[in-house]
């Protein structure tokens, strides 16, 4: 090693450090078990599309499958699995110290975690959801399904990355959130869908196509704004925790 050089070191470039975090998190998340598990959830969505092909109104039937199963259950579960673990694993394994003790702005790691989660969820879950109307014989619904699923994936990524940093047993909290908040309450409590991701994803699905979604919280434009805002809010909440939390 040479003589002390840290005094003259330059601040690392944002693009470099963000890419380093992103690449690491992608690598640590890609385990065969996770890929196979999430791909199985995606395969069920496509299977539902095949079954709805025989429905008289296959477009509406496929939209029901996309809304109820894809957006309401499979997508949040897949994102929950990846999102809570992307940083939660590092906390549990006490590895976060290697990323925290660096001259890097604290907003970067949570952002990389949200992006890495969304990056994995898109091919493994969003694409199968988007393909569901196609195999059902309703290709006109594909763009709306893709847009709704992609935005919902982003929103869920923000929520679950934050949960992974805030809660010790984030997966269980997340599971309760998906089943009770995003499903039971969204469907059963009148007006509650406005407070759910699945409600606004349904709004995008409905607004961008000629089908109706199982739950719908408002207009297409509002849906896009709210889902992006939820993702950003989740990221910011994660940043707050990352900045203030104490590390082992």
């Amino acid at each position, binding site marked *: *090693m*040479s*003589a*002390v*050089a*840290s*005094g003259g*070191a*330059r*601040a*690392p*470039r944002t693009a*470099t*450090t963000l890419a*380093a*975090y992103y690449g*690491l998190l992608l*690598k*640590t998340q890609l385990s065969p078990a996770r890929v196979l598990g999430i791909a199985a959830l995606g395969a069920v969505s496509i299977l539902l599309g095949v079954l709805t092909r025989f429905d008289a109104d296959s477009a509406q039937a496929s939209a029901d499958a996309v809304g109820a199963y894809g957006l309401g259950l499979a997508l949040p579960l897949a994102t929950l699995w990846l999102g809570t673990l992307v940083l939660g694993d590092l906390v549990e*394994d*006490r*590895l976060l*110290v*290697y*990323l*925290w*003790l*660096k*001259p*890097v*702005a*604290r907003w970067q790691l949570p952002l990389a975690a949200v992006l890495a989660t969304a990056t994995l969820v898109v091919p493994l879950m969003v694409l199968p959801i988007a393909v569901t109307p196609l195999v059902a014989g309703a290709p006109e619904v594909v763009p709306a399904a893709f847009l709704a699923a992609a935005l919902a994936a982003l929103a869920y990524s923000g929520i679950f990355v934050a949960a992974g940093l805030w809660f010790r047993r984030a997966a269980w909290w997340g599971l309760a959130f998906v089943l009770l908040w995003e499903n039971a309450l969204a469907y059963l409590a009148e007006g509650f869908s406005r407070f759910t991701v699945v409600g606004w994803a349904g709004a995008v699905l409905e607004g961008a196509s000629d089908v109706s979604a199982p739950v719908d919280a408002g207009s297409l434009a509002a849906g896009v704004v709210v889902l992006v805002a939820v993702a950003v809010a989740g990221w910011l909440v994660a940043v707050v925790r990352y900045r203030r939390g*104490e*590390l*082992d």
Partner: protein
Amino acid sequence: MSAQPTVVAEGVSKWFGQLVAVSDVSFDVGPGVTALLGPNGAGKSTMFRMLCGLAQPSKGTVRVLGRDPRLDVGVTRAIGLVPQQETVFERLTGREFVALAARLHGLGEPEREAERALETVGLDPADPRPLPAYSKGMRQRAKVAQAIVHDPQVLVLDEPLTGLDPRQRVDLVALFRRLGEEGRCVIVSSHVLAEVERLGSRVLVMSQGRLAAAGDFHDLRALMDDRPLRVRVRTDRPRELAGALLERGAVLGLRLDGDDSLELDTADARALARALAPVARDRGARLLEVRQLDADLEGVFRYVVEQ
């Protein structure tokens, strides 16, 4: 003490609910190697976490190069940490692990810097195995490599010699000493006295969350050498044995413990050992057990704290 301390802790306390991990600790450390010595649970790792900004002191302040490591992200550029935990990134090779640290520190040629750091700690940069496939000693050296890759001014090493074989220990101790001689502030924690002796002369001793002693290792060593040893003897005639040992002046003091035990204080364990058997034979006492107490490091620290 250095004229311009690199690391300063002032009245630092840290508690978790009712548990006080660190209590009112103050010290300053300058360039060179300083050993933070203490038994397990003394609060060394908690102190290190606060020095690196990983934890906020409940009370008091920590400054590294005059800056708050908790709030000032920029000061982390000057800090290298080898944490105590053994976990490593499962999917990274040693080279990827160290290059990641180099990238996050903004080094211009992260791969080359990683190679250099790995070679410095005696690891092969071309080793294609992931870190979990490394031996414990190799993983430990990889952790040291990631801590020094950016030439930090302050190096915080939490039990860095754990798991290393004697040869590796010698090499790393030499490296730490060299880094200290080059002007870096190297703080090394250990619960092994012999390790500390080789690391350098300045020591901070922590016990039960408090700073028990600070200063030159050789003074501490002398203090410990003067420490009376405590020996427990179980026998069927403790009173007779006690009287005879006091008569012969073989002990500094003693205490009867129950019906069959004695606790003896002696400055010369060998003299006591020589005296004990003949005295017991003369008094017709059977020696059921002879055991040295306070031989562990905890006992040593307790003695130091009492002084």
